[in-house]
């Protein structure tokens, strides 16, 4: 279980996160939605310590981090071992082949031997439909293929939690579908996931829990049924703005 209590993050005068309290249940998918600039990325990036909130408590299973205190490097590494992240811009390592992108961290962080790491990597690449591309470089791949490699790369570390920050926002619609299918499969296998997305149809289909953020505050946290069928006025306005019909 992953839990945040009274998290605050300030950029200059702006409160990017304003007293965030939330739980992310294991083996479920939480979808975070909200307008641009509402703090979705900041929230997700605080969960793997790419951002450091000024205050608040973060507990991950037995490990608790108090953001008002300095965080030891060891704590940071321990927490990052348990989490995987997929970025909007893929961020594959361009100088490594697809296979090496996936085996890099298992070999050098988990100290797996090369053969084991490659075997796992090939299985994962097959799972995302890219076993044919193992020896190509990222730049030879389409955006959708690169993002699927990025997913395989994160999965290779066997994280307890997977975070996705708008994984399809940089993709054309037909490429978006192939990535969303991979995510849907992962969710079906009861992985613990947190996904930031603007795709409401996908959110409706995949979410066990929906979080609506605005100006760094959680305005809603609950089931997708409630979110989509009995929205508050603000959520109703947001949903209308996201679609063409109103």
């Amino acid at each position, binding site marked *: 279980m992953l839990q945040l209590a009274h998290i605050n993050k300030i950029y200059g005068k702006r409160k990017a996160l304003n007293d965030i309290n939330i739980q992310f249940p294991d083996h479920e998918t939480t979808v975070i939605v909200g307008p641009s600039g509402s703090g979705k990325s900041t929230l997700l990036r605080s969960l*793997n310590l*790419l951002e450091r909130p000024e205050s608040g408590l973060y507990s991950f299973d037995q490990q608790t981090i108090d953001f008002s205190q300095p965080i030891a*490097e060891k704590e940071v*590494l321990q927490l*990052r*071992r348990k*989490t*995987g*992240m997929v*970025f909007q*811009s893929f*961020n*594959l*390592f*361009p*100088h*490594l082949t697809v296979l090496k992108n996936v085996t*890099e*961290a298992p070999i*050098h*962080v*988990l100290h797996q031997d090369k053969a084991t790491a490659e075997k796992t990597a090939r299985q994962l690449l097959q799972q995302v439909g890219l076993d044919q591309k193992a020896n190509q*470089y*990222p*730049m*030879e791949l389409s955006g959708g293929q690169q993002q699927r490699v*990025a997913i395989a*790369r*994160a999965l290779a*570390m066997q994280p307890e939690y997977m975070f996705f920050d708008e994984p399809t926002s940089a993709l054309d619609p037909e490429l978006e579908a192939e990535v969303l299918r991979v995510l849907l499969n992962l969710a079906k296998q009861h992985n613990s996931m947190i996904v930031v997305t603007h795709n409401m149809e996908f959110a409706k289909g995949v979410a066990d829990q929906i979080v609506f953020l605005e100006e760094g505050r959680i305005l809603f946290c609950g089931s997708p049924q409630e979110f989509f069928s009995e929205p508050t006025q603000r959520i109703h306005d947001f949903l209308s703005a996201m679609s063409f019909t109103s």
Partner: protein
Amino acid sequence: MTSQTWHLILTSLPPIIKASVTYTIPLTLISFTLGLLLALLTAMVRLSPMRGPFQIVRGLFWVYVWIFRSTPLLVQLFIVFFGLPNIGVQFSPWIAAIITFTLNVGAYSSETIRAAILSIPNGQWEAAYTLGMTRPQVLFRIVLPQAARVSLPPLSNSFIGLVKDTSLASSITIVEMFMVGQQIAAKTYEPLLLYSLVAFVYLIICTVLTILQSYLEKWTSRYIQTGNN
């Protein structure tokens, strides 16, 4: 050309080439290798995020780069070889040359390497961090291999520059190529021919290096799609 001229060329070339093999080339290779290591260290210290007392070290490296980039190489060479003995620090010409060239290359190339590291998108650091890598791991396994590609052309420039700058070592009694040419010119009263010969040998060395550079560039860019292949 007269047979006399040919004779002079054929008798002068061997000692000039010999001087390049025994002085110019080793001086360049040793100084550049040490200089690159120093440059890498300097770039890493200057980019290091550490605070507290460590800032003093970072400040010292900044001062080092500032001084060596802001003074002529010839003056640096004179200070090390002719100046330092005044305070009891004496080096052989070879050591003085290697120290000066190394420090000079280190200062210039550290800026090249620093810029190359900074040119690698932050997303590369973040992706590597989320995979559990430590800062040194990210630097050496993810960022520097990409920075190497970016810094190769400017570093090759420095390398070729150094080949030519070693001629300055003649001023601290090292009998490198230029000095040998000078000596023969003084004996034969043929400065145009002799200095042209010296220039020609520099040209050959630097051309070989330029060819080597283009191969290295191809190799380090193997993962970049050029679009026209």
